[in-house]
């Protein structure tokens, strides 16, 4: 029954996953661009972000139209609302990938004050958390949502570590300050990537049982 209804929800879910894939791709590229100091790759990320923004808007429109025409209730309604809220968090994650790419481009011609170890780790973690959070939302997977949210701790400790390392370097040599502060800012943004992924997880839980949970 209500084939059209079920199809449309499924299609919206597909779009969410598509958007997540592009974001993950961008994070990966940004990571690589940062590590290999590839300016060209960085530029790709920035232009691919267009697609992410478009998807956010189109998913929003589809959700609104779905509510107007199909009048969903209960779990269907919660899911649509969760998707509506989650896409804006996803779009922010995409923006952070762009930050990373931009940093990569800016620093492409400089020599790094230290080999980048934790920042790439944060990017990879961010990519994984984003992927898992969206999967948890689309599949209604409570366990995945919780475990993904828990990984934010890792992100926080990585951020702390990066700050410590960079602080030490900056205190050591005044010339390191310019690059160091930029890298610090990048770390902060990447830490926020994790926060947004956690928000997506809480919307997943809302979709599943209607509760707001703080992690």
């Amino acid at each position: 029954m209500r084939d059209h209804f079920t199809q449309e929800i499924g299609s919206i879910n597909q779009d969410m996953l598509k958007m997540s894939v592009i974001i993950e791709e961008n994070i990966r590229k940004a990571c690589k661009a940062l590590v290999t100091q590839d300016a060209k790759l960085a530029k790709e990320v920035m232009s691919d972000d267009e697609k992410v923004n478009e998807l956010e808007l189109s998913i929003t429109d589809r959700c609104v139209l779905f509510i107007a025409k199909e009048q969903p209730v209960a779990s269907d309604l919660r899911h649509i609302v969760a998707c509506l809220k989650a896409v804006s968090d996803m779009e922010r994650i995409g923006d952070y990938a762009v930050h990373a790419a931009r940093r990569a481009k800016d620093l492409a011609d400089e020599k790094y004050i230290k080999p980048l170890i934790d920042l790439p780790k944060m990017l990879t973690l961010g990519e994984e958390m984003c992927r898992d959070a969206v999967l948890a939302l689309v599949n209604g997977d409570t366990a995945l949502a919780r475990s993904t949210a828990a990984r934010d701790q890792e992100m926080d400790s990585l951020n702390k570590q990066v700050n410590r390392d960079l602080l030490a370097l900056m205190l050591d040599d005044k010339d390191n300050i310019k690059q160091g502060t930029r890298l610090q800012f990048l770390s902060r943004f990447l830490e926020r990537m994790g926060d947004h992924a956690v928000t997506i997880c809480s919307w997943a839980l809302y979709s599943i049982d209607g509760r707001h949970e703080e992690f």
Partner: protein
Amino acid sequence: MNLDNTAGLDLKNVNIHYGDFHAVHELSMDFQSREVTALIGPSGCGKSTLLRSLNRMNDLIPSAKTTGEIVFHGKNVYDTDVDPVQVRRWIGMVFQKPNPFPKSIFENVAWGARINGYKGDMEELVVTSIQRVALWDEVKDKLQKPALALSGGQQQRLCIARTIAVQPQIILMDEPTSALDPISTAKIEDLLDELKKSYTIIIVTHNMQQAGRVSDKSAFMLTGVLEEFGTTNEIFFNPKNPKTEAYISGRFG
């Protein structure tokens, strides 16, 4: 029986049979006073049957048999010393297809009150009743004209006016807007918000959105069994019973 305060209805182990067919099974629930409770469920689930049993309209169907208790102001309406005619005066009914009497608009509202021995100012009663159903402006110059000349939505509001003229405490509505256009439907739904301040309203509806819009509590029935009963917010936000979820999402029924 102290009839001063508007009462609700308490149902205990109600069973209704039509001959051999067991239409309603062991149903227990309470209808709260001055609230709108919606009975929802697919066709044939027993909600209209249950509704008709609340004011003993089922007595008019020879094969219908009701057991259990339906308690109104502390008295079971099915006790042998209870007169069904009296029950229907306190528990009124509005039907699916508007069915005003083939009389004038005024008579339609006045007749019920008159046969129940209303000794007050009849004209005032009629005017007040018609005003309360937001029909006054449309009929104030033609009270003596036949009621059947009104439009469907107007007729249905007239039927509601007729019911409240008798000053019942509970109003039963059996899909009151299913035969009406969206505008008439909206007018009647607005009415319910007002009416529930004075009456207890129990409405059977097929229209999920209507139940969501008008009711405070909802009861979901399936093949004669009460599957879930809770506030409308709960039922529509996060129903406990998966069958309820499936029905209101339109996955069956």
